[in-house]
C-alpha cells in the first residue's frame, strides 16, 4: 500500500516538476515568475482538444501542431505584452503576466464554455501494469516518466552545449555583457517563452488526461508546481524536478492519512520554504563580490 502511495506520488510529482520547468526557463532568463503559465498551457490544451475532436486530426499531428501553437503563443505574448514594458520593474512585469492569465481564461471560457470536457491521450490512466504484489503503474505514468526524462536530458544538453542555450544563461547572469558580445536579447526572450510554453503544454496534457479539461483545470496544478519550484529553488531544473517528486510523495502520503487536508500541503511547503530557505533546497547561488 505504502509503495503504491509513493509510486503515485512520484508520478504526480514528476508532472508538477515538468510543469515547474516551464516557469524556471522564463524565470532564469528574465527574473519574472510567469503567472500566466497555467492558462497558456490550458489554452494550448484546448487547442489540441479542438482539432482532435472537431477536425479529427490524427493524434501525433495534432500533438505537434499544438506544440507549434504553444511556441507561437509564447512568443506572441512576450512580444505584445512584456517587451514594450521591458524597462519597468520586475513586479510590474509579474503584474502583466497576471493580466495575460485573466485574458486567456476569459477567452477559453468564451470559446469552449465552462463545462468539463474529456481529454484523451493514447496512454490511459486506467490501463495499468502490476509491478509486484498489489503495486501497479499506469500507462499514463510510464509515458510521463519517459517524457520528463527526455525533456530533462534535452534541456541539459541544450543549456550545456548549444550556443543559444549558453547564451540564455549568459543573458540571465549579465544582460549588459550579453549585449556587448552581440547577443540579440530580444530573440533570447522569444526563445525562452516559446520553450517554456511548449514544456508547460506537454505537462498540461498529462494533467488533463488524468482529470478533465475545463478553463480552471490548471489552477491547482499550477499552485503545486509553484510549490515544487520554490522547494527545489526556482533556478535549477534538476532542483525543481526533485522538488516536484518530494512534494508529490509528501502530498500523497499526507493525503492518505488526513484526506481532508491534502490540498494544503503545497501551500504549507511554499510558506515553510520561503521562511527558512528562500533560495530553495538545491540551489547554490553565486553571490557577486563587491
Amino acid at each position: 500500500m505504502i509503495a503504491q502511495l509513493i509510486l503515485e506520488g512520484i508520478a504526480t510529482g514528476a508532472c508538477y516538476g515538468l510543469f515547474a520547468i516551464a516557469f524556471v526557463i522564463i524565470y532564469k532568463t528574465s527574473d519574472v515568475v510567469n503567472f500566466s503559465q497555467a492558462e497558456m498551457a490550458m489554452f494550448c490544451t484546448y487547442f489540441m482538444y479542438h482539432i482532435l475532436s472537431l477536425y479529427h486530426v490524427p493524434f501525433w499531428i495534432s500533438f505537434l501542431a499544438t506544440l507549434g501553437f504553444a511556441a507561437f503563443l509564447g512568443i506572441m505574448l512576450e512580444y505584445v505584452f512584456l517587451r514594450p514594458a521591458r524597462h519597468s520593474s520586475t513586479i510590474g512585469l509579474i503584474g502583466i503576466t497576471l493580466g495575460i492569465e485573466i485574458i486567456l481564461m476569459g477567452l477559453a471560457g468564451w470559446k469552449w464554455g465552462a463545462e468539463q470536457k474529456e481529454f484523451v491521450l493514447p496512454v490511459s490512466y486506467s490501463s495499468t501494469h502490476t509491478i509486484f504484489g498489489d503495486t501497479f503503474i499506469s500507462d499514463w505514468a510510464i509515458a510521463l516518466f519517459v517524457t520528463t526524462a527526455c525533456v530533462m536530458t534535452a534541456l541539459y544538453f541544450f543549456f550545456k552545449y548549444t550556443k543559444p542555450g549558453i547564451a540564455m544563461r549568459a543573458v540571465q547572469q549579465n544582460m549588459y555583457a550579453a549585449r556587448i558580445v552581440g547577443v540579440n536579447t530580444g530573440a533570447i526572450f522569444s526563445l525562452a517563452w516559446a520553450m517554456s510554453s511548449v514544456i508547460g503544454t506537454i505537462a498540461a496534457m498529462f494533467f488533463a488526461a488524468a482529470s478533465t479539461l475545463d478553463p480552471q483545470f490548471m489552477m491547482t496544478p499550477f499552485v503545486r508546481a509553484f510549490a515544487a519550484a520554490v522547494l527545489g529553488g526556482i533556478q535549477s531544473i534538476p532542483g525543481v524536478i526533485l522538488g516536484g517528486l518530494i512534494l508529490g510523495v509528501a502530498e500523497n502520503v499526507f493525503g492518505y492519512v488526513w484526506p481532508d487536508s491534502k490540498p494544503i500541503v503545497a501551500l504549507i511547503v511554499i510558506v515553510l520554504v520561503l521562511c527558512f530557505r528562500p533560495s530553495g533546497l538545491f540551489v547554490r547561488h553565486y553571490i557577486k563580490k563587491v
Partner: protein
Amino acid sequence: MKALLKLSGIETWHGSICALKHVSLEVFQGQIAVLLGPNGAGKTTVLKTVMRSLYDQKRAQPEKGSIEFEGKRIDRLKTGEIVRRGIGCVPEGREIFPELTVRENILMGAYTRRGGKDIRADIETVYRYFPILRERKDRQAGYLSGGEQQLLAIARALMGRPKLLMLDEPSLGLSPMMTREIFEIIRSINLQEGMTVLVIEQNANIALQYAHYVFLLENGRVVHAGKPEVMKRDKRVREAYLGSSDNSSP
C-alpha cells in the same frame, strides 16, 4: 594615416543631463589610443555610445553627431551588428558571466561568429596569451580573482576577432603589477595582431607610457589631444594627472 573610428560632434544625454558635449575624436589604424579623464568626465559614456548600449527610455543615443567605423556610419546600428562589424569591448568592472565556466565565457565572445573550427583554434590562441585561463577553464568565472577576471574579459573580447578593441579602465581594482601586466598584454596584442586599441583610463602614468595618442576628456568635452610626449610636457596634465611637477617616471 587612416582613422578606423571617427566620432564627430557627438552629443549624448542621460535623461536631462548632457553627458557628452560635441565630442570629436579619431582613433587611427594600428595605434593604441588612450582616453584619459577624471571620474564623471564621460569616458565610459563614450564607449557605451559607440557600442550603442545606452538605453534611454525614449530617445536613441547619441542625440547628435555621427560615428564612423572604417568609413561607414555605425551610430544607428544595433549593438550586435556593431560587434559583427569588428568592435570588441571590455567593459568597466569586467562584466563577466559569473556562473558560466571560463571556457563558456570565452565562447560567448565568439557569439556573432560562425564556424566551429576557427573558433576552437582561436580559443587555443587566447589560451596561449593567457595560460592561467587554460588552467581555470572549467571553473566558474565568478570565483576567479579580479585580475584573472580582467584577463577573461579581454580574452572574451578577442574571441570576436575585433578590428578595434576598446577597454574601459582595465586597471580598476588591480595591483600596480597586475596593471602593468595587462598593459603589456595590450601592447603585445597591438604589435602582434596589428589590432587597434582604445583604452579608457584614469591612471595617467601608465596610460601615457603605453599610448600612441592621448585624448583628454573633462566634463564631457575633449579638452586636449596629442602624442603622449607632448601631453607629458603639458603643465596642466602634469599637475592634474601626474600628481607632481618633477619629471621622474613612476
